């Protein structure tokens, strides 16, 4: 047997992830002050981050651990369709899959949410009534974010009115890369207000931010602005979610909770296609931030084809042989 020496090593040091007084209240008093704060966060060595991720990628997750990981991953999926050609029929089909992912096994857990464009949120909401599965809607001129503030906020309000429980917004990457951090921050604050009781995920579009230093800064910016989740990507830009990016975001939420007492969730999206990928993410969470984030309340996978691969692997564990695409549904 191999022992983790101290399973409590990553537990919440304050004992309760509540809200403490904000030690960062005045960093947003001006763009200069905000810039100094964000640029004062520790840098990230890219090679070192990749090395850590590679090492964690060698974890061998077998038998009972694998079964738990697959079911947990399924329960964390935000089952997604974000195409120009989406129709109510497509959304209803996805919703049916969300509630019963495995046509051959009713014990398979449902997914966490269905993620659609805001104008189809109502269709999804109706199709998922009574299931406890949330409706997440993308808004704020997804995926580019290039529209006026007024248009973006209207987009959010429409989605919320349509029944979205969660809003996935995009940050203004142009403003971020131009150093107008306060503009980006204020927009997130405004969107959070427009969300009402809907829960807000902030998409950083890390593929456009490129450096891990920028990912760390954007993560802190989004959390300070009140985001409930930070999300890697729209899935429309490559590279989308990568493990080093996810590592840096997990470190950010860990440090943020230690500093403020507030827990923020993480959602990698795009490019996560296989069970192996998903399990690597769970290992990353387990060994970076710990068990507190190992639930759909605090971690989601933004994915579409991942679900079928998870189901195939689940079927293999159940039946003992490799499964095939005819045993999962095509949506």
């Amino acid at each position: 047997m191999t022992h983790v020496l101290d399973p409590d090593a990553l537990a919440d040091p304050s004992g309760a992830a509540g809200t403490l007084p904000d030690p960062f209240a005045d960093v947003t008093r001006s763009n200069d002050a905000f810039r100094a704060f964000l640029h004062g966060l520790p840098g990230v060595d890219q090679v070192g981050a990749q090395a850590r991720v590679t090492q964690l990628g060698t974890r061998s997750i077998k038998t009972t651990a694998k079964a738990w990981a697959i079911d947990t991953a399924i329960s964390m999926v935000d089952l997604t369709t974000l195409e120009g050609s989406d129709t109510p029929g497509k959304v209803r089909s996805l919703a049916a899959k969300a509630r019963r992912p495995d046509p051959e096994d009713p014990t398979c857990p449902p997914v966490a949410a269905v993620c659609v464009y805001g104008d189809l949120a109502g269709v999804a909401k109706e199709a998922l009534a009574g299931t406890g599965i949330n409706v997440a809607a993308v808004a704020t001129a997804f995926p580019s974010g290039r529209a006026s503030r007024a248009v973006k906020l209207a987009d959010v309000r429409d989605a919320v009115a349509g029944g979205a429980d969660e809003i996935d917004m995009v940050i203004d990457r142009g403003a971020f890369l131009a150093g107008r951090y306060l503009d980006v921050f204020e927009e997130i604050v405004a969107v959070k207000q427009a969300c009402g009781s809907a829960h807000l995920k902030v998409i950083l579009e890390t593929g456009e931010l490129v450096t891990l230093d920028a990912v760390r800064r954007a993560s802190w910016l989004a959390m300070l602005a009140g985001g409930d989740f930070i999300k890697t990507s729209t899935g429309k830009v490559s590279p989308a979610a990568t493990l080093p990016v996810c590592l840096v975001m997990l470190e950010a939420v860990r440090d943020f909770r230690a500093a403020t007492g507030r827990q923020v969730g993480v959602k990698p999206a795009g490019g996560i296609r296989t069970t192996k990928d998903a399990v690597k993410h769970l290992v990353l969470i387990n060994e970076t931030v710990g068990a507190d984030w190992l639930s759909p309340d605090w971690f989601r996978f933004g994915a579409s084809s991942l679900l079928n691969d998870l189901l195939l692997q689940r079927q293999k564990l159940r039946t003992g042989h490799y499964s095939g695409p005819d045993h999962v549904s095509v949506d």
Partner: protein
Amino acid sequence: MTSLFEYAPAPESRSIVDIRPSYGLFIDGEFDEGTGTPLKTVNPATEEVLAEVATGSTEDVDRAVRAARRAFTRVWGPMRPADRGKYLFRIARLLQERAREFAVLETLDNGKPIRESRDVDVPLAAAHFFYHAGWADKLEHAGLGPAPRPLGVAGQVIPWNFPLLMLAWKVAPALATGNTVVLKPAETTPLTALLFAEVCRQADLPAGVVNIVTGAGETGRAVVSHPDVDKVAFTGSTEVGRSIARAVAGTDKRLTLELGGKAANIVFDDAPIDQAVEGIVRGIFFNQGHVCCAGSRLLVQESVHDEVVAALQRRIGTLRVGDPMDKNTDLGAINSAEQLARIRELVAAGDDEGARRWQPEGELPDRGYWFKPTVFTDVSPAQRIARDEVFGPVLSVMTFRTPDEAVAKANNTTYGLSAGIWSEKGSRILSVTSKLRAGVVWANTFNEFDPTSPFGGYKQSGYGREGGRQGLAAYLKGDD
């Protein structure tokens, strides 16, 4: 409290290795009985006896050296250099082909995690042979003149911490430069060397080019003091290094030594903190701290001491210790009861001298030789745990205020093998690097090795370099 995501056992199968009950010596292309009292080699994770291994007597060593001399004079020396290269390419490929077998055997015999044997030791060993194979017919570019010549017979003694890799570091350059070898593996870890002998046969390496004489200290002494050995290469403790240097005094024998260390890992306030913590962990807990170039002293800038130590302790708590054959193990067994006793003695000294010891919560396995990762804070430079090499998973933490103070403290040791420096500022890295008296300096990384990068120490960490173009010089006579 148990972790929510418990990893199930993920054992690597042992079935790929076929360990014989006993092994002889590999001399002149054949396995034969040694004439000394055999020794037993043990799996340090379980204390199970793995095999009996012959002990080479003085006569056996003499036979091996004569076989190496014959092979040098008649076969290997006159051989076309490109052909020597081809043999080394074959050996490299065979190590790659039999990689899993070597990794499992190394873990069983040494106690290191299978993940490390598989991902570090064996691939690097193959890479060393591959790299040196290409030098065999290019020695006029080695920087030693247009026609450098081999020295003859090399007597090589290697330690137990990276048995196969240390064999590769010794044998590959020796052969590539046209020498033949008599190699003595460490007493507690002979098995991968003996499997390597099989690889030499599979490669059709001519008899006598590589000879493997197992045994303990006496056998090693016989190898290094044999009058017909032209070149001695030793990796091991500084204490034994001194006695070897004394033994070759007044002879024509060339000598290289790779000895102990007490490396400083320097963390500045502008370090990339999360990666620095990984680097500290890698620096002292990789291979259970059984590393001559281990980052065993953490010199952290005082302004970030508490933050770094807290992050370090948090990270150490996630280390997985236990069965080295489990693919998820991070920290394996201590190699022997003797080494465990040494570690305990020094740690007790640390306690006695007033340093503050921290170890993570948790259980260690019952059987086998184990030690928890340990961090001493409030260490002062005069304490034994700041000065003596522990060669185990024990880190001593000290602080500094300015770069000059960091350099002074880092250099304040009779050792000089390696050092680490963590900072996001390039000019500071280069400035500090230029002042560190260490043969290997890692900036924003640690314990990285490559056949192209010369390795070796300053001061009492030894002399000579292994690897790279510079490493060839130890095995050649050129124009200089």
